[in-house]
């Protein structure tokens, strides 16, 4: 398996049942797939959740990731999204040291990044930023000189743009659309013929 290692975004619709997250994470661990982030939440359909994965690997690895995910009984649908055709966001909470002398400078940065200050303490601020990963990284790097106390990031969530819902899903030539539930195999011993 060769090819360039890149980050890929995969979205899976899964049944909301106990243990489903364990099945998915166990699969990634066992097969040695390199997961950069994983975010889970309710979907628009009752009892179904949506998971967004960012996975590192080449095209052949991504093919295995989507196929292996599809094999899990509780996974309803798996789509690999094309980067240019999606809206992707991540939320980060950043607790940064803020003294009376640095506070206004931090507030300026927050405004430039269109982030929010969601908590103010005597020695620190909590900043909430919803954005792409690069912008969060940029903000993080600018805040670092002030003294970062704590960071919490949700991992990417992603959705295909309305205009490109079908285009955004990477086609898989060799995995035909599944048909209806297959009939059970014949259960009789038959001769070679």
């Amino acid at each position, binding site marked *: 398996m060769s090819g360039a290692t890149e980050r890929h975004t995969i979205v899976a619709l899964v049944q909301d049942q106990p243990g489903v997250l364990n099945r998915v994470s*166990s699969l990634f661990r066992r097969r040695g797939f390199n997961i950069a982030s994983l975010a889970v939440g309710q979907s628009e359909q009752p009892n179904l959740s949506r998971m967004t994965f960012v996975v590192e690997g080449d095209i052949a690895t991504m093919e295995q990731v989507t196929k292996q995910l599809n094999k899990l009984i*509780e996974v309803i649908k798996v789509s690999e999204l094309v980067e240019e055709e999606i809206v992707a966001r991540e939320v980060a909470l950043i607790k940064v040291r803020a003294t009376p002398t640095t506070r206004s400078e931090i507030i300026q940065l927050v405004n430039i990044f269109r982030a929010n200050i969601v908590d103010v303490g005597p020695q620190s601020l909590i900043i909430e930023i919803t954005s792409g990963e690069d912008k969060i990284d940029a903000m993080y790097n600018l805040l670092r000189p002030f003294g970062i106390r704590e960071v919490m990031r949700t991992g990417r969530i992603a959705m295909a743009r309305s205009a490109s819902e079908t285009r955004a899903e990477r086609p898989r030539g060799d*995995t035909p659309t599944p048909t209806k539930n297959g*009939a059970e195999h014949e259960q009789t011993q*038959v*001769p*070679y013929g």
Partner: protein
Amino acid sequence: MKLTGAQIVCESLLRENVDVVFGIPGGAILPLYGAMPEYPQLRHILVRHEQAAAMAADGYARVTGKAGVCMATSGPGATNLVTGIASAQMDSIPIVAITGQVPRAAIGKDAFQETDMTGITLPVTKHNYLVMSAAEIPQAIKDAFYIANTGRPGPVLIDIPKDVLLNDEAEFSYPDDVDLPGYKPTMDGHPSQIQKAAQLIAEAKRPIILAGHGIIISRAYQEVLELAERAQIPVVTTLLGISSFPSEHFLNVGMPGMHGMAYASMAINESDLLISLGMRFDDRVTGRLSDFAPNAKVVHIDVDPSEISKNVKATVPIVGDLKRVLQALLPHVEPAVHAEWVQQVEDMRVEHPSHRIRETDKLLPQYILRTLSDVTDGNALVVTGVGQHQMWAAQHCRFKNPNSLITSGGLGAMGFEVPAAMGAKVGAPDKVVWSIAGDGGFQMTLCDLATCAENNIAVKFAIMNNGYLGMVRQWQDFFYNKVYTATSYSANPDFVKLAEAYGIPGIRVTDKSQVESSIRQAMMEPGPVVVDFLVEPEENVFPMIPAGESLSEMLEEPDQVPAFQASNEGIAT
């Protein structure tokens, strides 16, 4: 009327046409055993170790095509099933394992005999369930059997807390349909892909069919035979594909790979088209992937999309049930003659006769297996353990009927031979079932001789007794400077006396001249028999392609080993 969880399990199993279950009771599953006398149609076979329950269910499933069922109590009972479940997962065998769990209120409290069975079996089952109320049992069992039997078959475990079995009650009605929105195996191949495959077959000059276990699972013998004959394509059978194609057919080239026939591996090497049917390019088949079939395009047909292009890139992938795909493919396949190619393969067979057994008065296991095959006229069901005897059986047994070799191929679980043969005999009581064992593997599961004796399960056990863990010793011989650590069984029991202790006749064979008569004598016995063959102790399996190597590193004969060792100083395989 409301039924208890235990009654609901029994009712549901009957709805799935279960007639036999293999198991051992214990605290957490006792309520289920308590209900069983109300359901005499469910025959319970009490085994002596839970591993045997899972492996017997495996053997039963392979011969009947129905899911085999095993049961165990929570904790150690359930964990003992795991090796058998893992073997079934690797070999795509439908089994349903039902385990008792500690009562709901005790789960997560490290209660006595509590283990997280859904957690433990998660990577070695196709799916599993922890059922938390009696009302959920019917749907879980319905879905479990459906998942186990369809698509690429596999094991499913259902874990049920004791109090759900004992105290919890529900109205029983068995569902007509499964509730599995995320499970829809692709059964029919894509028509345009099938066209492309037919095109490649028409263009091929040196095609090979790689016949795998999928042929047996989908019972596609007739279709494969038709394909091979119509386009005159030599057939190479993987370990689990043996008996998917008649052994004596002139197009059958035998098993390839690590211990396969040299000419089968050579044919793959020379081929310009591999038609891979229900097989998964295991490393024992391919060796080093970069050197595997360098000139071949690949048509890969498998029901599991994740197997396609996992190890070997498919030129034309087709996902679907093999029988249905081949039925759709055959009308597009033009009759062809590949006389030159077939002759080329035949020449390789003549020049590299790895199927030949050397002339000697010594008691060779190869000779025993060939004789056994001859005496049974290729009609026996052969169940093997894992190791040298397994490879010799694969090399030297001939089969007239499909689905006649049962072996733990993927997991390679020693000890499989005793319980799997037992399950196979229960599933096919009219068949002659020979269990081929090594003295190592046999001692891992021989406690279930008692089960055979108790239930008169007439398996014929043949032990290729060399007093060694033979295959491990062979690796030490070839790759670990002949440092034979921990592979000698210097204090084996007297297997004849041991058999007699179990109430089973035992026969000892020490000389080549006794082989045929002892096999005949064993088959005259109405019940189980143990035949202890004291074989040539230091015989090795040839040919051998060392792990991770390719055809050019094949050791065809013993005299090639020293040269290989000299050029691979410090090899770690």
